[in-house]
C-alpha cells in the first residue's frame, strides 16, 4: 500500500482529478492525455446496434467507470476494444497505436488487459499456476526451451515471487496450492484480477469486478483498484453499484443502447437528471421517507411501473424469486396508482433487489 495518501486524497488521485477538471462534461469529451481513443465504433447483432460509440477517450492514470443499464453494450464494447469481438466499423488506438484487427493476445501484450464479467478461473490449475500464467515474455513458454528447465528456472522463480506478492495483497496466499476451481465466486474474482496484474498492464479493464463479492471483500477490492492508480496504471471498469462508482471513479462514462450518453465526474453525472431518470432509476438515491412522500402523490408508482417494465424484463431469467413477488413487468399506469403505501415501498425494495440480482448474474455474450 502506498503511503503518500494525505487527507484521504493521494497524489495520483489529485493528479488525475486535476487533469480531468477542465474536461467538458459532454459525451466524447477530449482528455488532456488519453491512453485510449475510440472513434465511430459500431457493432451490430442482426438488427440490434449493440455498440455505436462516436468518440471516447480514456484519461491516462485515472479510474474511469463505464456505467449503463443491462444490455447497454458495455461488455460488447470491452470485447471490441480487446479484440475478442470484431467491430463492423470504427477505429481505436492505445497509446497512439491503432488496435483495429489486433488479436486479443497482442492487445494484452501491448499493455491492455481485461477481465471477464463471467469469471474465468482456470479450474484445474492451482492458484499459483494461474498467477504464473499471467506473466508475459516467459522463456519457458517456447517449445524447445521448455524442455530445458535450466533455461527458464530463474525467470520462473522471479515470476513466482511476484505472484506470491500479489496473492498476499489479494489475501489469497493461503489458497496458493489449491485448485482455482475450488475457490468461491468472490475469490475467483480476486484471482482473476490478480492474474491480470501479472501481465503488468498499463490499462486494466475490469468487467464488473465487484459482482458477487461480499461487502467486506468489496472494501478491500476497492482498495486494490485505487492502489492500481497509485502504481501508475489506468483503470477502466464496468460497475452497476453506484456507491462504488462514486467512491473510486475519477470520471464516469454513461452508456445506453450502445451510445455514450454522458460523461463527467461522478457527482455531476449522477445528478444529471437525464441520466438518473433513464439509466440509474429515478429513486436510487432517496430515503424511504421521501419515497413514501412521493408515493402519496402517485408519481413514484408510475416510475416504478415504468422501470419494472424495463429492469424486470432484463432480470427475468436470472431472478425468479425476486420476480415472484414483484409486480408483473406489464403493470399498467392506471393500476399502479392504486398501490397502497406499504405495498409501494415493498415494490421499490424488490426493484432494487431485482436490479441487484441482474447485476450479479449478467452474462458475457460474445466473450466466447
Amino acid at each position, binding site marked *: 500500500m502506498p503511503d503518500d495518501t494525505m487527507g484521504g486524497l493521494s497524489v495520483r488521485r489529485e493528479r488525475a482529478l486535476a487533469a480531468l477538471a477542465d474536461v467538458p462534461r459532454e459525451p466524447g469529451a477530449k482528455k488532456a492525455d488519453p491512453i485510449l481513443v475510440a472513434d465511430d465504433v459500431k457493432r451490430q447483432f442482426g438488427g440490434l446496434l449493440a455498440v455505436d460509440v462516436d468518440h471516447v477517450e480514456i484519461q491516462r492514470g485515472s479510474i474511469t467507470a463505464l456505467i449503463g443499464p443491462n444490455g447497454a453494450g458495455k461488455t460488447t464494447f470491452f470485447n471490441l476494444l480487446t479484440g475478442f469481438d470484431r467491430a463492423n466499423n470504427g477505429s481505436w488506438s492505445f497509446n497512439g497505436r491503432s488496435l483495429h484487427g489486433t488479436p486479443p493476445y*497482442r492487445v494484452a501484450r501491448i499493455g491492455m488487459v481485461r477481465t471477464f464479467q463471467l469469471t474465468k478461473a482456470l479450474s484445474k490449475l492451482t492458484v499459483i499456476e494461474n498467477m504464473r500464467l499471467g506473466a508475459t515474455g516467459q522463456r519457458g513458454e517456447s517449445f524447445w526451451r521448455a524442455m530445458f528447465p535450466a533455461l527458464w528456472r530463474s525467470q520462473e522463480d522471479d515470476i513466482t515471487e511476484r505472484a506470491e506478492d500479489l496473492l498476499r495483497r489479494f489475501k489469497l496466499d493461503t489458497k496458493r496450492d489449491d485448485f482455482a476451481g475450488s475457490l468461491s465466486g468472490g475469490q475467483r474474482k480476486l484471482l482473476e484480477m490478480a492474474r491480470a496484474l501479472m501481465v503488468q498492464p498499463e490499462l486494466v479493464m475490469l468487467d464488473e469486478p465487484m459482482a458477487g463479492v461480499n461487502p467486506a471483500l468489496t472494501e478491500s477490492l476497492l482498495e486494490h483498484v485505487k492502489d492500481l492508480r497509485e502504481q501508475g496504471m489506468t483503470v477502466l471498469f464496468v460497475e452497476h453499484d453506484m456507491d462504488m462508482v462514486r467512491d473510486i471513479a475519477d470520471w464516469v462514462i454513461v452508456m445506453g443502447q450502445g451510445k455514450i450518453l454522458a460523461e463527467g465526474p461522478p457527482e455531476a453525472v449522477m445528478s444529471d437528471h437525464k441520466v438518473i431518470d433513464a439509466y440509474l432509476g429515478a429513486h436510487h438515491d432517496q430515503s424511504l421517507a421521501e419515497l413514501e412522500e412521493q408515493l402519496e402523490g402517485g408519481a413514484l408508482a408510475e416510475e416504478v411501473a415504468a422501470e419494472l417494465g424495463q429492469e424486470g424484463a432484463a432480470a427475468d431469467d436470472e431472478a425468479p424469486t425476486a420476480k415472484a413477488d414483484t409486480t408483473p413487468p406489464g403493470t399498467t399506469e392506471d393500476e399502479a396508482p392504486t398501490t397502497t403505501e406499504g405495498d409501494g415501498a415493498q415494490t421499490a425494495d424488490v426493484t432494487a433487489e431485482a436490479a441487484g440480482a441482474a447485476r450479479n448474474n449478467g452474462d458475457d455474450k460474445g466473450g466466447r
Partner: protein
Amino acid sequence: MDWGSIFELSIRELIGVQAIVFALAAIGINIQFGYTGLLNFGQAAFAAVGGYGVAVIVTTYEMSFWLGIVVAIGAAVVLALLLGVPTLRLRADYLAIVTIAASEIVRLVGRSAWGRDVFGGSDGITGFSDTFYDLNPFTEPLEFGPFEFRERILWVMAVGWGLVALCTLMVWLLMRSPWGRVLKAIREDEDAVRSLGKNVYGYKMQSLVMGGVIGALAGIVYSLFQGAMQPDVYATNFTFFAYAILILGGAATVFGPVLGAAIVWFAFQFIDLTLRAAITNEYIPDWLMNQNDTGAVRFMLTGVVLVLLLVFRPQGILGDRREIALDAR
C-alpha cells in the same frame, strides 16, 4: 488349465509391439486431448501417414529408408497443419469432425484402386523394412526365465520402447514447464489465456503437430514390425482404441497412456486365453460359447471393465480424483 502358459503369453503382450504402438498413439492423444483439450479423432490418419511415408519412399520410389522416416514425420506435420489451420480458430467440435473425416479419407485413398501404383491398394505395401532389420544388433534369441524372444521382435521392442521412453520423457519435461502450463490453461478456458497475452492458436497448433508426429511414430513402428503397410489397420477403431487406453490409464498424466496400453493388451490376451482354456476343459459348456466366440467375448468383457472403471474411477488409474470433483462444481 495351464496358468503358467496363460500368464507367460499374456505378459508377452504386456510388453509387446501392440502395447508399444498403442502407447505411442495414446501419448500423442494425451498431449492433444489430455493436456490441451483438442479432440483429435483422427490419430489413425497420423499413424497411417507415418506408415505410408516409409513404405512409399522405400518401396514405391526406391529411395533411402532414412528419407522415408523424414518424409513420414514431415507428412504428419503437414497433415496436422492441414487439419489445424482451418479448425483451430473455431470451437472444439470442428476439429473433431474434420479429423474423423480425414482419418477415413487417408485410409480410403490408401486402399483406392487409382492410387494402387503408389499406395499398393488394399493389399498395402511390403518390402521396406530391410534397412531397419539390417541394423539389428541382436544376433541370437534372448531367453529370460520362461520367455523367449527372437532377434527380430527384440529389435522392434528395443526401438519401440526406446521411443515410448523418449516421448514420455518429453511429455514429462514439457508438462512441468511454462509451455505445458499454457496448454493446460487452454484446455480450461482459451479466452482467459488469450486475455493474458498468449497466442492460443499457435499453442494449439504445436500441440496438434506434436501429438500427430508421435502418432506417426506409432504407425512407423507397427508397419516395420509387420513388414507391411496395410491401410485397413488404421480404421477409426484404431483411434478409439487409443482413446480408451488413454482414459483407462488416466488422461493428462505422464504415464497413463503407457500403463493403459500395457494393461489393455495384457487383459486382452489373458481373457482370450483363459476363455479358450476354459472351453477346452469344458468349464464353459459348448452351448454357451465355443472357441470362435472368444474374440467377441473378450471385447465385451473389456468393455465391461472399462465401464466399471469409469464409474468407480473416472479419472483413470493414474488420474487425480480431486480434478474430477472440480467438474461437478
